């Protein structure tokens, strides 16, 4: 009994002595939803944070703070001088990096996002073409909270495969894995709206090249298997009349076959795409089986050619964003892999793409 009383006294004295100072009462918090980082010409950081507000008496839907600081946490200290809320980062969903910073390497400035235990590893990372702070500060009339707008845009597009879903976890995993290079989506301010503008390719943590928005589906086919997605294929040849096929309900399966003979690495990428055709502008009668097979062949050829040129782009910039290196490493064994400098070797590896399209369904029209 004495022990129990002692226990209670101890508990209360602990509480009284300041444990309660840990409390983070909801309405006193400024929960940063999105932050953006830009590198200024003088090497200082320009940091912007967007904090959704719920005060029914205030007309603004969010609070946006911008500071210039030499490192990120100091930026937060400076920011908190400007607001009555306690700034916390446990609800942060997006980190935006300006192109200026991405070109210099972003890992250095991600440190706080990795180190702070209250920040989720599911935090999404993207690159802004232009100034990230400006994009975040801007209010878009049709979309009340810019931070949330960006978040939902990225979430929705990644579920349709047009961009990969890049979180801080996946970015770091790809960064430290030597068989793959990280990627992020690129967004751009279009005046009245924000647009997904392609995929950024990183060499280590530096931005080196970009895949344009129209080709991102080809990248998705090469990157891995998925279900759900849409693609528009332009079948028109030079001087020919226009032919388009719009494929939907994509189910794509990728198989990588690596062969290793006489120090010679050869990667064969076999992709099978099941789809249904939703729109076709052209001469072929797709309810006819022969015509349909012909169409399938033409689409397959077209996609294969596009894939080839994408591989060429990657080789040109010496970035293995598809993770072919991991497949090669698995095939040739660690000792051989260790001897090889994959970054230098990659452009010389023969990569053969084989895309096969199967149209399962061509709609109600016979």
């Amino acid at each position, binding site marked *: 009994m004495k022990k129990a009383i002692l226990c209670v006294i101890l508990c209360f004295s602990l509480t009284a002595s300041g444990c309660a100072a840990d409390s983070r009462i*909801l309405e006193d918090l400024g929960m940063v939803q999105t932050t953006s980082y830009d590198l200024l010409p003088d090497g200082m950081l320009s940091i912007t944070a967007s904090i959704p507000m719920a005060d029914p008496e205030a007309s603004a839907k969010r609070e946006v703070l911008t500071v210039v600081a030499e490192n990120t946490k100091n930026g937060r200290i400076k920011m908190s001088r400007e607001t009555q809320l306690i700034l916390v980062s446990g609800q942060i969903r997006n980190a935006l990096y300006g192109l200026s910073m991405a070109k210099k390497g972003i890992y250095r400035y991600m440190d706080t996002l990795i180190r702070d235990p209250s920040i989720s590893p599911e935090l999404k990372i993207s690159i802004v073409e232009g100034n990230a702070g400006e994009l975040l500060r801007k209010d878009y009339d049709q979309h009340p909270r810019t931070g949330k707008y960006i978040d939902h845009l990225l979430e929705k597009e990644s579920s349709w495969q047009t961009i990969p879903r890049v979180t801080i976890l996946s970015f770091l995993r790809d960064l430290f894995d030597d068989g793959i290079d990280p990627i992020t989506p690129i967004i751009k301010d279009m005046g009245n709206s924000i647009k997904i503008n392609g995929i950024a390719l990183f060499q280590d943590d530096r931005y080196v090249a970009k895949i344009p928005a129209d080709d991102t589906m080809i990248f998705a086919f090469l990157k891995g298997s998925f279900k759900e997605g849409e693609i528009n294929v332009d079948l028109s040849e030079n001087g020919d009349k226009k032919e388009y096929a719009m494929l939907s309900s994509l189910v794509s399966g990728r198989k990588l076959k690596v062969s290793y003979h006489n120090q010679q690495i050869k990667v064969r990428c076999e992709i099978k795409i099941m789809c249904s055709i939703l729109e076709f502008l052209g001469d072929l009668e797709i309810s006819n089986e022969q015509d349909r097979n012909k169409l399938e062949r033409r689409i397959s050829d077209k996609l294969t050619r596009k894939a080839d040129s994408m591989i060429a782009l990657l080789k040109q910039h010496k970035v293995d964003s598809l993770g072919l290196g991991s497949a090669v490493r698995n095939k040739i064994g660690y000792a051989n892999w260790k001897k090889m400098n994959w970054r230098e070797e990659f452009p010389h590896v023969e990569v053969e793409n084989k895309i096969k399209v199967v149209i399962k369904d061509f709609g109600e029209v016979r």
Partner: protein
Amino acid sequence: MMGILTSMLRKVLFNPLNETNKDQDHNHNEDKPEQNASADLQHILDQFKRSADLIHHRYPREGLDVIYFSHMINEDKLQRDLLPPLLAAPAADIILNEQSQFQQVQNAKDCVTGILSGNAAIFYNNVAYLADVTLPASRSVEESESESIINGPHEAFNENALTNLSLIRKRVRSSHLKVIHLSVGEISKTDCYVLYMEDIANEDYLSELIRRIKNVEIDAIHDTNMLLQCIDDNPYSMFPQYMTTERPDTIASKLVSGKIVCLVDGSPSLLSAPSSFFEFFASADDYYQRWAIGTATLFLRFMALVITVTFTALYVSITSFHYEMIPENLILTLTTSRSRVPFPPIIEALLMETTIELLREAGARLPTKIGQTIGIVGGIVIGQAAVQAGLTSNVLIISVASSAIASFVIPSYIMSAAFRLFRFGLICLAGLWGNLGLVIGIAYMVIHLSGLTSLGSSYLTPVAPFQPYDWRDVFFRFPFRLLNRRPTQNRAQNKTRQKMKR
């Protein structure tokens, strides 16, 4: 009619094991009759001095004196059946000694006890005889209010022990059903019956229960729930360690499964022992529904337990410490509703929980008609006005209301009251230390429950000790053909319940 029935029943039910605790009364001054004092008329009349309700009939010519309490006996029977032959006979003592309905009593104490429990005392030549003509006042067998169900029998026990015994005998027609008569309470001398199925119930449990009841030293027992607090293993615990019910069908099933039942005269609830924690979450309804529905209902109840215990505490801990845990879409709603509240979450939550408890307590004490008013006033004032006035957030109202509703899903009122009280502790802990406090509180509860015993058997039985077969009947409600064994906790002499051939 009732009097005849009950007197017959009493004769049938009295068992050779009938023991009265003689040695515990000797130091009580209230019982003036000495052990050895002979039961002479004057002495008995002295005992009942200043008892206006005592009836004393004299028949000087026949030499008979009759003493009884008119409100406790069936006077019809006495006047019409018992007295005429005595008055007509040349010598009454021949009949008195011959017929078994008259019992000669040797000492004054037995005589006084007999009169007090509804016998008529007949004196002839200063020799006392008792005639059992009891007709106790009680209400009729009615529907159970506290444990009503939709399907199945609706009758409930009432305050008369003999009626209750007859309800049980009616359901368990077996000569193996044994009834032991005990009496508790130094002054009240309340009748207490211990029932068990011979060859099924465990003898160790039986003798332990009887020993504990005999050792109870208290002036009066008014209800089973009072008795069980005198005989349970951990009197300081918040949780009830014996299951009580006022449903005859439940009691019959407990008996048949090998439990021991204890019945107290004057109480409509019967206790069954040993009990496990999870028994308090079962209802008779589960067995009268199809098995799938019964199982789903059981899941619902355990879910209700989790909701009752944690919901409000979780709200407090999340809004005061763990903003990271809130889903993105909920944040703005939650912040908006919190932003007008002037109190920290813990004060807000305690305020609302107290209000709900006030409402419940007020509703429980008031007649139904006023109770409705309370419901409306409470519902509107608490639900709407408190939010509009900015005293609480509406998310809290939802969590407080749902945990209050969930607490009433637990079939045993005593168990649900225990958890409602425990919840307050949990809310305070959550307000002090957030999720850490919540976990400390729940861990303390689990440790405490694991330490409890019921008649010496583990309180958490099918979980610890782990008895997977019992789970079929505790966490699920398997079809009856798969419920072949009696619960392990009962340590029944015959472990197999049935051998269904199909």
